[in-house]
């Protein structure tokens, strides 16, 4: 199996404060990895370090077998950030234009869109049930609608690796369930590798194949079955919480 992400002894600092310490894990093609942990545990820092958005680190990060600092195959990767800040309401792009930006990574200069790109955008909007929003201005949408448009942007390039940071935070419960099912479907049918950061420990066990429990360092990394039978995790979480998280019973 191809290694899509390899992290070895990663340490990150915010100024003098160590945000992540000695993190090592690997993600292979077809994995669905849930990264969970309490607030401030370094989940988002880890994602930002993976993507090169946080320069200060020690250790080694590789994406698709390439060292992160020289990684260039961005078209193989889709990213949905934690929050866009409230999107600038004055930004004058339509949903269609924003989703289309997700296709830029695969293009050489001058990056231009063609007719086939248009169809790809429309298909993705339809898949996520937001084709009726395509001409609406992104700044005029509700938080949940914006999040779905941003998900469409992350998925439109059919990425091999999808990295999402707290993607369900702004979604209603029923849309959140549909969202999880859609991501699972992409993982199973298309073999899309998924890395999903969430504090939703109660739900992720239903969908992900592996879990990385983070609290500035790795407390657990492995399959949910391994988590379920781990005496260390029973001691750490208590048996009740452990089995609520693993969703295996």
């Amino acid at each position: 199996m191809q290694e899509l992400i390899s992290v070895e002894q990663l340490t990150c600092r915010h100024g003098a404060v160590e945000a992540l310490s000695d993190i090592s894990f690997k993600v292979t093609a077809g994995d669905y990895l849930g990264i969970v942990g309490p607030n401030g545990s370094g989940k988002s820092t880890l994602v930002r370090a993976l993507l090169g958005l946080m320069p200060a680190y020690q250790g080694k990060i590789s994406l698709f077998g390439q060292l992160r600092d020289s990684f260039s195959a961005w078209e193989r990767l889709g990213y949905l950030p934690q929050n866009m800040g409230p999107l600038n309401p004055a930004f004058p792009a339509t949903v269609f234009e924003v989703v289309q930006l997700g296709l830029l990574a695969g293009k050489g200069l001058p990056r231009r869109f063609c007719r086939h790109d248009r169809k790809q955008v429309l298909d993705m909007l339809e898949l996520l049930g937001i084709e009726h929003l395509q001409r609406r201005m992104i700044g005029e949408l509700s938080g949940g609608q914006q999040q779905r448009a941003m998900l469409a942007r992350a998925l439109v390039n059919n990425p091999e690796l999808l990295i999402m940071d707290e993607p369900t935070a702004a979604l209603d419960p029923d849309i959140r369930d549909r969202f999880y099912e859609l991501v699972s479907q992409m993982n199973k049918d298309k073999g899309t590798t998924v890395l999903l950061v969430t504090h939703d420990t109660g739900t992720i066990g239903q969908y992900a194949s592996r879990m990385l429990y983070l609290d500035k360092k790795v407390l657990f990394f492995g399959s949910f079955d391994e988590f379920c039978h781990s005496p260390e995790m029973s001691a750490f979480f208590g048996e009740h919480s452990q089995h609520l998280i693993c969703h295996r019973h």
Partner: protein
Amino acid sequence: MTIFELFSYGFIQRALLAGVLIGVLCAVLGVFLVLRRLSLIGDGLAHITFGSVALALFAGLQGAAMLLVSLPVVLLASLGILKLAGKARLGGDAAIGIVSSVGVSLGVLLTVLGRGYGVDLFSYLFGSILAISKAELLVAGGLFITVLALLWLYYNDLVALTFNEELAAVSGIRVRFLNGLLAALTALTVVLAMKLVGVMLISALLILPASAALQVARGFRMTVVLSVLFSLLAVVGGIVISFLLNLPSGATIILLAFLLFCVGYLFRQLQTVKNKS
């Protein structure tokens, strides 16, 4: 005098042609600068342009030759602003404030040391498009083609950068290079626009057409198209009116652009009321 007679004058033709070239550049760049909240970089660079003009006059240069001093100085200043903002624990606003005040101070010192306050410097402060020479028009044409070609090449990269810098980086877009490019293109445009509206009013030509377009446009491409349209209306209308009524052209252009912004704002308010009811 009829409009036809007006357009038969060589100096009016040159003024209109230069105005159109500069107006288009300011309109397109303005959309990116306003949305990135970098509107004041134009103002800062305009102040540096003032310093560079004083330096050129001090060195005894005139007309198009002055650009030999202004262009490199303002380009360096634009990159200096980015460097200061990135390295010296400063926000962009403070970096612009520092660089622009240094530009004005140098300008004042050099003017006093050189030949005192003269008519030459006044024309650069408030624009003198009706006095544009053939050589200056040629330089403007060359810069117009350069800036427009680079904007065409990196258009979608700039849209992505303007929407969200981190998402652009994860799409493989070279964010630092593009930020530098945007600053450099703004520097070139500001030096050109100095002749049209003058140092004091350059930032308005970058901000007003883009802001007017943002009031009414429904989509990014439409914003850019409308910004160009508003800019051309203001520039061409301003030059014609200023000549017919013997008014200063720079100030007339900017007040016309402000009028268009007001119309755009009113249109938006009416649309909002209509949508609510």
